[in-house]
């Protein structure tokens, strides 16, 4: 029973990280109709920027966190502007290949600056652990869960209630019609990249705090897992990314605890395949038939 609850909590925590990253994938897909495969590497850049801010610039941790979030948001906007915007009318394959190129570019830049050796991620969050009966939950796990929950609530309100959020939904449904309403699609896409990359930066802080070491390829595995989570939940759907991320984390941890550590990834992807066979649009993905 203890193992069950500990696995559940570590699954929720890992799932929260996946969900934060998956939100970036799914929002960008929803608005710009592209898969930004460089998104995972923004996590890596976010983690390195915390390292630089804390270790080399001696910033207080809380400031370093906000600097990292702002830096990633800006990076996301710049990547979009330089790499993807010129391809707005290009075939989607060209955009996809460009995204993979951007991914390698970011990894190589990181190698050039920080070397290929892994770097220690500073202990910027030190929270006391909480004991519930016989289960001990680490402070960082609690922080991950709490912050992710808050972000999800705020993001949902933002998308559903604010003018910018509604404009994002309008653009995601019909770009041309949105432009006729006076909504600039270019600006909306920039905002989406900024939000997605900022969420990746938040994920990077929890990832770094949980796994403590960072190297230039750190972003690719959580990036792929989060992409899987986004597809699992229904790509383009924000609640889908949240659900998909959390479920993926839980499945992964339970596979590790109860089945086999080496097989866990295989199980995760097998579940994805089964879900897509049964429901090709993902768990919460929807297809609306249009009236003509």
């Amino acid at each position, binding site marked *: 029973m203890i193992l069950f609850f500990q696995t559940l909590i570590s699954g929720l925590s890992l799932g929260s990280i996946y969900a934060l990253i998956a939100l970036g994938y799914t929002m960008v897909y929803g608005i710009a109709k592209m898969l930004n495969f460089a998104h995972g590497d923004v996590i890596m850049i976010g983690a390195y920027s915390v390292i630089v801010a804390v270790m080399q610039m001696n910033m207080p941790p809380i400031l370093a966190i906000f600097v990292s979030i702002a830096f990633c948001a800006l990076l996301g906007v710049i990547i979009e502007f330089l790499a993807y915007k010129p391809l707005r009318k290009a075939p989607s394959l060209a955009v996809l290949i460009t995204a993979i190129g951007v991914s390698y570019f970011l990894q190589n830049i990181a190698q050039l600056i920080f070397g290929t050796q892994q770097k220690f991620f500073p202990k910027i969050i030190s929270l006391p652990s909480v004991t519930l009966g016989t289960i001990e939950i680490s402070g960082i796990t609690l922080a991950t869960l709490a912050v992710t929950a808050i972000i999800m609530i705020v993001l949902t309100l933002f998308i559903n209630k604010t*003018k910018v959020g509604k404009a994002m*939904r309008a653009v995601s449904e019909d770009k*041309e019609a949105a432009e*006729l*309403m006076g909504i600039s699609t270019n600006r909306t896409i920039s905002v989406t990249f900024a939000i997605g990359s900022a969420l990746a930066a938040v994920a990077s802080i929890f990832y770094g705090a949980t796994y403590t070491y960072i190297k230039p390829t750190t972003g690719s595995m959580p990036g792929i897992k989060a992409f899987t989570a986004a597809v699992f939940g229904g790509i383009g759907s924000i609640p889908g990314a949240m659900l998909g991320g959390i479920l993926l984390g839980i499945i992964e941890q339970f596979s590790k605890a109860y089945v086999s550590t080496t097989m866990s990834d295989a199980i995760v992807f097998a579940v994805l395949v089964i879900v897509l066979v049964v429901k090709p649009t993902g768990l919460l993905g929807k297809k609306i038939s249009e009236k003509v």
Partner: protein
Amino acid sequence: MLKVENLNVYYGKIHALKDISFDVKEHEIVALIGANGAGKSTTLKTISGMLRSHTGSTTFCGEDISRIDSYKLITKGLAHVPEGRRIFLQMTVAENLEMGAYTNGGYIKEGLEDVYNRFPRLLHRKNQIAGTLSGGEQQMLAIGRALMSQPKLLMLDEPSMGLAPILVEQIFDIIKELHSQGTTVLLVEQNAGHALEIADRAYVLESGRIVLTGTGEELAESEEIKKAYLGG
């Protein structure tokens, strides 16, 4: 109010609009009629910046708008209800209307009241997802959404398409009412009979060219039009 001069638009190598020139004066209803593929929708799309013309110019209220970004036109008083309505199917009726007032935020409350007065059916369905509306309701929503920007010129692309005859009557009544309240209308229609009935002037398009022009009455009486578009 709107002056279009020498538009030439290409889809790849296809020459879709050939030297299109026409104008719309304040308080007029002007109709563009013609068969499928004659270039009517292409003309509207070019005016609203979704397509670019190789030559010529579009002037709206004295300002050259041929190179302006599409999304800036609504603030100048030009609203376009596109073909197929293009409402946001996954958003509620009220949200769709709010999007119509995206650049006209101060008007939302008053505008919603005005639109709900015109289309009481939308009031009953205001919290419903737009994708669940019937075709006629969707068209009303599309027109209502455009009205939320308080346009000087309303461009309507095939507002009667796919609607039952009784709804077609309703939509044309709404257009007449808007016109009598001071809105200038540029109407694209395949339903030539109805369009000519309410239009002050009309232009007939054929394979990307304007082949005939006159007042609505004149064209409705013309033998060529009767033969080609009014079924005898």
